[in-house]
């Protein structure tokens, strides 16, 4: 299809460093569902209203499976990565998705994650010790933001931490929106092969491992519920989710504090769980970093918001737009850590695919924002804001580096 002569806007919009693209508020005023045009000329439905985003994400007539005809691909790179024999379960629909997800749900209950808090506190304090020892300026992106969730998820799964470089490099390639052809698939395959090897090794004596991998071997592989390839798929998605999302959220959260001295002062003075929790929720809402999370395709004709979405048409419910909908969040463009949420934000998505690891992410973030302001009370940016490199070529928003001084 050639250049369009109509007024259908091209999507995705350029995301500013902080806050949502201005197009969202324009489109929100125009109506509930808008047509947008993707790079391949195809047209999909964009939703920007909070209630609509939630309704679409909770509606199982829409599929999350990129192999389905009409699934809206946001870039050529992503379009090429759709043919996996065994996709990640986040790209499956019920009942397959339900079966895999339920093998993991008990690992991420709020109680179980709360039990990991002392371990996370130890890790955060060690990492801050290391930052202090290095002396200013220090780039927090590798030394705190990425190191923390990497150490925590590897500890939970039972993957040796010395292999973190292997995973970090491949995680970046897998999530890239403009890498070389086939590179994302190759990176994913290498991670799966690694996990199959480690699972087989542990399977020789699985009860010796008090970790998620040991339990998956005993509870799922040995009874014959799943094979090694399926277990490896589960482990890789947990590794990925643990790497990129929390790391980016820690970085943007710290930046938010440095740009809002009053908020930073509040967190220095008041480390009560309620204050820290409200601040973390506001950072999650404001940044909504996993902004492409809700990409779906209709499996049947659906009447919605006065339009007929036909089977095979893509829908793009935007969590970043929903979380900045002024009908639900007063002055949404303002980062207000004392905000009382009248509506639950959708930074972790909505529907059956809502983030499984969110209690872990929240706990890690709460430890960071309970500890960092106290231990580095004079923290400041070591470079001007305009020089901070934001990620532009990956499906998760974040900072490539965050140089700080104190």
């Amino acid at each position, binding site marked *: 299809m050639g250049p369009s002569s109509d007024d259908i806007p091209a999507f995705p919009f350029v995301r500013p460093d902080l806050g949502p693209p201005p197009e969202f508020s324009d489109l929100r005023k125009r109506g509930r569902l808008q047509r947008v045009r993707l790079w391949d000329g195809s047209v999909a439905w964009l939703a920007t209203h909070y209630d609509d985003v939630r309704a679409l*994400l*909770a509606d199982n007539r829409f599929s999350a499976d990129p192999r389905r005809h009409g699934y809206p691909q946001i870039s050529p790179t992503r379009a090429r990565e759709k043919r996996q024999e065994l996709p990640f379960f986040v790209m499956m629909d019920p009942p397959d998705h*339900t079966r895999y*997800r*339920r093998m*993991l*749900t*008990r*690992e*991420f*209950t*709020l*109680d*179980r994650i709360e039990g990991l808090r002392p371990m996370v506190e130890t890790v955060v304090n060690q990492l801050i010790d290391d930052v202090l020892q290095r002396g200013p300026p220090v780039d927090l992106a590798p030394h705190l933001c990425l190191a923390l969730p990497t150490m925590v998820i590897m500890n939970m799964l039972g993957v040796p931490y010395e292999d973190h470089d292997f995973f970090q490099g491949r995680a970046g390639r897998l999530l890239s929106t403009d890498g070389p052809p086939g590179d994302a698939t190759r990176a994913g395959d290498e991670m799966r092969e690694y996990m199959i090897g480690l699972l087989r090794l542990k399977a020789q004596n699985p009860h010796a491992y008090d970790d998620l991998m040991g339990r998956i071997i005993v509870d799922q592989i040995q009874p014959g519920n799943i094979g090694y390839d399926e277990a490896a798929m589960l482990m890789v998605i947990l590794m990925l989710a643990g790497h990129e999302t929390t790391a980016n959220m820690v970085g943007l959260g710290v930046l938010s504090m440095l740009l809002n001295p009053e908020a930073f002062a509040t967190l220095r003075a008041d480390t009560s769980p309620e204050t820290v929790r409200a601040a973390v929720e506001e950072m999650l809402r404001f940044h909504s970093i996993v902004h492409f999370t809700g990409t779906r395709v209709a499996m049947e004709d659906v009447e919605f918001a006065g339009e007929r979405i036909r089977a095979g048409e893509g829908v793009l419910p935007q969590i970043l737009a929903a979380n900045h909908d002024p009908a639900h969040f007063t002055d949404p463009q303002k980062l207000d850590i004392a905000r009382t949420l009248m*509506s*639950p934000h959708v930074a*972790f*998505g*909505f*529907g*059956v695919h*809502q*983030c*499984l690891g*969110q*209690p872990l992410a929240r706990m890690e973030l709460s430890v960071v924002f309970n500890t960092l302001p106290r231990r580095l009370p004079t923290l400041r940016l070591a470079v001007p804001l305009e020089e901070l490199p934001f990620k532009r070529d990956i499906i998760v928003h974040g900072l490539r580096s965050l140089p700080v001084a104190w």
Partner: protein
Amino acid sequence: MKIIADRSKCVGAGQCVMVARRLFGQSPDDGLVVINVESPDESERGLVELAIRSCPSLALKVDE
């Protein structure tokens, strides 16, 4: 007011527990919802409604 949870819909996201820990829990066996207080006091209706609205898989409702 009686809380009804459809465990076949539950995805173990824990939103109900986060909103109202006294009323909801998660089974340590499968991570899915358990109701701690089946018929909460009328004074907790706001909390129950927030839990229902927070559930991503629409697994909760109240029977009046």
